[in-house]
């Protein structure tokens, strides 16, 4: 496969698309699929057939278009028409309207801030190409960066490009990607590995799933480029078994890429070979932690081990291993195609590029968005997210999942980047964003996340194993109005112990939701405590009327 071959495929694909009068895209990603978008697709195909429009109209399934809240979504590509909340019964009307006035009843607004304010790199193909056809990825300039790089750049050159882009790991900690690549590149090993971390265990997060389902070739290309840069010839994608569609599409994508010589031996006629295999996770949150993930891939129990040594030096079976998040790797092809300077111009000085967020909770436009780093939280939640529904007031936004924290109204004007979120007592995390309205009890929010950490603790180290269970019980007591100031003090002490002494990130960050809600919403804890003290003193207010 050479650049010429790629552009030939690309040209043929574009010609074929131009020849079609109308292109109807139906979102068949998980959320829309659960609303029977496959049925919608079927009915659309039938309607096209019945109305004799087969020659000028094509229906295809695409990945997540982002506005999952309004699903199932259907887009008519060239006319730039979006339909939302489509039912199978709408199919004939949609087909009749082709080339004329759109069906107003179900028409969505593509000029709305939800679409207009986003900037897409990672999701640039999501909802636009058929994830099951490699030709469509190639027509969107896919694999261009790979072939170009293999023939024109040294591995160290690739590392330098990634370093200059300023890309940081999207798996949570924001570690500079270029620096990690340089370390693995320099590590001595007779073999090296690349792992794509697609474990994605945060509750409410589905960024990585969307990419894997909607644009799987982007990940394969990113991994192959990573393999070339660090000197690895084998890659593994670690995906949780709960993502069957992602697994199916990845498998298909690997086969297609192998067939075209874009994976396997001597890619693009060079001496570089790279293979990708899939490894399934059983859905344990802790298996997203890199050393636990490695142990799981090796066939062991998925528990973390102390670092150092870091995987970059001693990873899979003791060999130097590069481990990156799905979204991190998804940025790579575009960075190499457009150049690091282009990428570095997006975002803020220390947080370059864009970030994908999964909007969930009390927010109108639940779904998937991608925005430049540094966009104020207020803009994300109120302009793009459409604010809090049902006329309720905003209370807090939880970022970073069970390792993150809750940010109140007063923090909403901070730019959304790694440093600012840390300053607010939360973290960027992998991109989950859960909005809470005035009806949420912050003690219960803390309890929810603590329960999650307690259930997901691997049980290896004492502070996390026993501490999370103790903290959960204390939060239960506080929430139920059964606790006194003593329990609150003990809770704060345990937060300190567990944070400071746990072995891995799970335990070290498990207290964060408690600490941040205590910081911003201490009054809610205190009113619960007051109820508990009153009960202890024997003049209990009626249960439930406490807070």
């Amino acid at each position, binding site marked *: 496969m050479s650049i010429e071959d790629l552009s030939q495929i690309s040209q043929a694909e574009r010609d074929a698309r131009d020849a079609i009068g109308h292109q109807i895209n139906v979102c068949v990603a998980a959320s829309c699929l659960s609303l029977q978008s496959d049925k919608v697709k079927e009915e659309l195909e039938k309607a096209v057939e019945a109305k004799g429009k087969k020659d000028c109209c094509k229906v295809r399934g695409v990945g997540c278009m982002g506005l999952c809240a309004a699903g199932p979504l259907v887009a008519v590509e060239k006319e730039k028409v979006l339909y939302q909340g489509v039912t199978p019964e709408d199919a004939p009307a949609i087909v009749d309207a082709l080339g004329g006035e759109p069906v107003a009843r179900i028409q969505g607004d593509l000029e709305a801030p939800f679409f207009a304010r986003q900037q897409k790199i990672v999701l640039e193909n999501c909802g636009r190409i058929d994830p099951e056809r490699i030709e469509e990825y190639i027509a969107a300039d896919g694999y261009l960066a790979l072939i170009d790089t293999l023939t024109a750049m040294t591995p160290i050159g690739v590392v330098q490009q990634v370093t200059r882009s300023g890309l940081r790991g999207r798996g949570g900690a924001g570690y500079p990607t270029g620096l990690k690549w340089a370390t693995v590149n320099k590590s001595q090993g007779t073999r090296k590995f690349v792992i794509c971390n697609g474990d994605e265990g945060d509750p409410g997060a589905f960024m990585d799933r969307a990419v894997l389902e909607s644009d799987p070739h982007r990940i394969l290309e990113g991994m192959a480029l990573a393999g070339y840069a660090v000197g690895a010839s084998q890659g593994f994608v670690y995906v949780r078994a709960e993502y069957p569609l992602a697994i199916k599409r990845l498998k298909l994508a690997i086969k297609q890429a192998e067939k075209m010589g874009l994976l396997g031996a001597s890619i693009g006629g060079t001496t570089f070979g790279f293979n990708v295999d899939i490894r399934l996770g059983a859905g344990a949150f802790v298996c997203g932690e890199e050393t636990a993930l490695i142990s799981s891939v090796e066939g062991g129990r998925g528990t973390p081990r102390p670092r*150092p040594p870091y995987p970059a030096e001693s990873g899979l079976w003791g060999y130097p291993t590069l481990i990156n998040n799905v979204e991190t790797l998804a940025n790579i092809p575009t960075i190499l195609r457009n150049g690091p300077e282009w990428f570095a111009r997006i975002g803020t000085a220390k947080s370059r590029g864009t970030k994908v967020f999964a909007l969930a909770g009390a927010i109108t436009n639940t779904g998937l968005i991608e925005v430049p780093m540094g966009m104020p939280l207020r803009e994300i939640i109120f302009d793009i997210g459409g604010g809090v529904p049902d006329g309720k007031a905003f209370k807090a936004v939880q970022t970073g999942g069970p390792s993150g924290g809750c940010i109140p109204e007063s923090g909403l004007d901070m730019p959304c980047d790694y440093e600012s979120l840390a300053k607010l007592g939360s973290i960027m995390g992998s991109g989950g964003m859960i909005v809470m309205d005035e009806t949420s009890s912050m003690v219960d929010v803390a309890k929810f996340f603590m329960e999650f950490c*307690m259930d997901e603790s691997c049980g*290896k180290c*004492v502070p996390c194993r*026993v501490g*999370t269970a103790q903290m959960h019980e204390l939060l239960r007591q506080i929430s139920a109005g059964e606790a006194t100031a003593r329990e609150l003090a003990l809770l704060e002490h345990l937060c300190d*112990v567990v944070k400071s002494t746990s*072995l891995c990130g799970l335990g070290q960050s498990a207290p964060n939701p408690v600490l941040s809600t205590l910081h911003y919403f201490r009054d809610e804890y205190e009113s619960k405590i007051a109820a508990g003290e009153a009960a202890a003193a024997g003049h209990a207010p009626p249960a439930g009327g406490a807070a």
Partner: protein
Amino acid sequence: MSGRPSAKPAAGAPSSKVKTLTIDDRLVSAREDESILDAARQNGIQIPTLCNLDGLTPVGACRLCMVEVKGSSRLFASCVTMVGEGMEVVTDSERLQKYRKTIVELLFSERNHVCAVCVSNGHCELQNLAQTLGVTHLTVPYLHPKLPVDASHERFVNDHNRCVLCQRCVRVCGEVEGAHTWDLRGRGIDTRVITDLNQPWGSSETCTGCGKCVHVCPTGALTEKGKSIREMAKQSRFLPYLTMMREDRSE
């Protein structure tokens, strides 16, 4: 030695590079592949430990051996942190004492440690830790789990009520005896040691009955049958000797 570029030691061979560091303001030297804990012990500085046992691969699970290293706000488990040149280690401070006490309390709260009726009473590492660290009562509530006792083995007993999940039994059986009878199942607070694939110990087809697990077990979780209260003293000293002799033979 010092001026020359350092070659990586060949795999398996002990490193010959020596580092100089201070532990509690004392200048000490240690091989670069030795842990802070090793270096401290060689110099008579005591750091509390529980999961660690000389002769077994360290796992860093109990977190009692954590120390401060100047220049970092993080704490380090000394059993799994290698020495570094110029490192300044503090093994005892108010903060460390506070954490260690709480960790021991958490262990007591996790299972049902009724020392008065325990065969290991008086010979128990958990008890000793509580005494050295001054844990006289618990500030965290007892969790009171309902746990079984497996007395199906001809000579030994496994009482889950006394287990601290240090994994010493798992490691000695896998690494030294080579039988791999022990393992862990479940996660979080529901983690348990198991024999074979969670079968009664007595029906285990892999257990050789060597008793190594019993003698490395720091508490009254694994004991010999027929011992009465206070009678179960463990002999874990065999281990460093055994591993040393084996290493010698293999060279």
